[in-house]
């Protein structure tokens, strides 16, 4: 009896707390969302670092498991549709529905492979997050630095809020925006060739690695 009333009390407390949280989120959305982009990306980078430092995953045989885990972190944080649209920019509309879908998938694998290789080469670098600036109320840039033995590499993440989730749509390393860089390459190819030709190049590239 006593136990039950206590659990009811608990339930009420939990309910009250939930209500309050909801209220706070509802009433002060601006205050709550400030800092969230940085927290999101920081948590994600820490997750990757945890995987890399996990001694159980350090053997050669565990390489696949390790990569799988990192892939799932990538898929959580990157918005591939946004990435693809922004990279292709006005060329996006030249692709039909199926082509857009395939492009998204190929681009995801290309970027994933590139970043996977870089991440797996990680030794004892440190990652420092130092600043977040809102580009608009739905876009933010989080600045970080990778500290290696001989230098600092500035690495910024551009993020967009979609359905209350912050997702990365561009990574800027030493001032070089990844999507702008790919855009210049894709523009050059698509100015001479149809979308299918670009897809073919991407397929070849992704299958090779």
């Amino acid at each position, binding site marked *: 009896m006593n136990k039950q009333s206590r659990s009811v009390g608990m339930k009420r407390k939990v309910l009250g707390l939930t209500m309050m949280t909801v209220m706070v989120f509802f009433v002060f959305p601006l205050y709550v969302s400030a800092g969230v982009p940085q927290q999101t990306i920081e948590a994600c980078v820490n997750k990757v670092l945890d995987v890399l430092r996990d001694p159980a995953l350090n053997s050669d045989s565990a390489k696949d498991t390790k990569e799988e885990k990192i892939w799932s972190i990538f898929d959580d944080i990157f918005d591939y549709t946004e990435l693809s649209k922004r990279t292709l920019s006005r060329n996006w509309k030249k692709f039909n529905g199926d082509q857009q879908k395939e492009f998204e998938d190929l681009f995801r694998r290309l970027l994933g492979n590139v970043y996977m290789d870089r991440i797996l080469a990680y030794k004892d670098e440190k990652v420092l997050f130092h600043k977040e600036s809102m580009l608009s109320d739905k876009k933010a840039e989080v600045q970080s630095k990778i500290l290696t033995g*001989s230098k600092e590499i500035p690495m910024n993440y551009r993020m967009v809020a979609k359905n209350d989730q912050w997702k990365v749509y561009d990574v800027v390393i030493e*001032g070089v*925006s990844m999507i702008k860089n790919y855009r210049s390459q894709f523009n050059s190819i698509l100015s001479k060739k149809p979308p299918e030709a670009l897809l073919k190049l991407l397929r070849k590239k992704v299958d090779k690695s």
Partner: protein
Amino acid sequence: MKCLPSAVVIVSVCLLVAVFKLSAFCSPVWAETLVFDSQRIGCSVVDESVPTGMELARLTLDVAPSTADDEEEEEEIVDIADPIYYWNKGMYHFNDKLYFWLLKPVARGYGWALPEGARKGVKNFFYNLAFPIRFVSCLLQAKGKAAAGELGRFALNTTVGMFGLANPAKEHPALNPPDEDLGQSFGRWGIGNGFYVVWPFLGPSTLRDSVGLVGDSFLDPVRYVTPMEASIGITAGDTVNETSFKIGDYEALKEAAIDPYISIRDAYVQHREKKVEE
């Protein structure tokens, strides 16, 4: 001999003004080359047909047309004219082979023979030696604080740091301003990139930055080592030492690209743009 650096600054400024005037004079020609070029390498023309007036405007201004359903405030393409494309592409291949066949194996062997600590010392030494380039460029941009920081670092590292072999200034943020060079100073003065140039041995550059590099080389003490063979040898040594820290970077950049030539061209322009802004 002592008045050389100041003479050099004056000469390079004159040269710059000349180039600037020339570039203003040439710009319609450039626009035409760009149209011609974009069909060959595809800067931003949408289809193969002769560009219409609208497309021409888009081409020269590098502005993507805004799509109605999406706010695209960051769509502007940092693009650059490439009128000497065939030369550049040739030099790109030359430098690529130079890296894989010569520089990389040599830097690898060197890195194997010399421990990291010693290589870092060499790196620090050359960095400290190139102080005049950064200092003068700070002054030319009226960056007093940065110039003071450069001067402070030079003083500290040359004395306490034993002729720059060590870098005790590393721990003081005020003594670590962003690196400046003449190309950036010119950019700060509002001078545009001009067009893209790839130099053998030196790699990607632009017309503006090439003029800057010439000026920089006069501010570099290594230039004044005689005989010239020794000066070139020292520069080569510096390059090998520098490369020993960066093996893998170029490979990764190339591996990530669908069209490495365009990727490197764009990365160079974006990177320089950011450095000018700083």
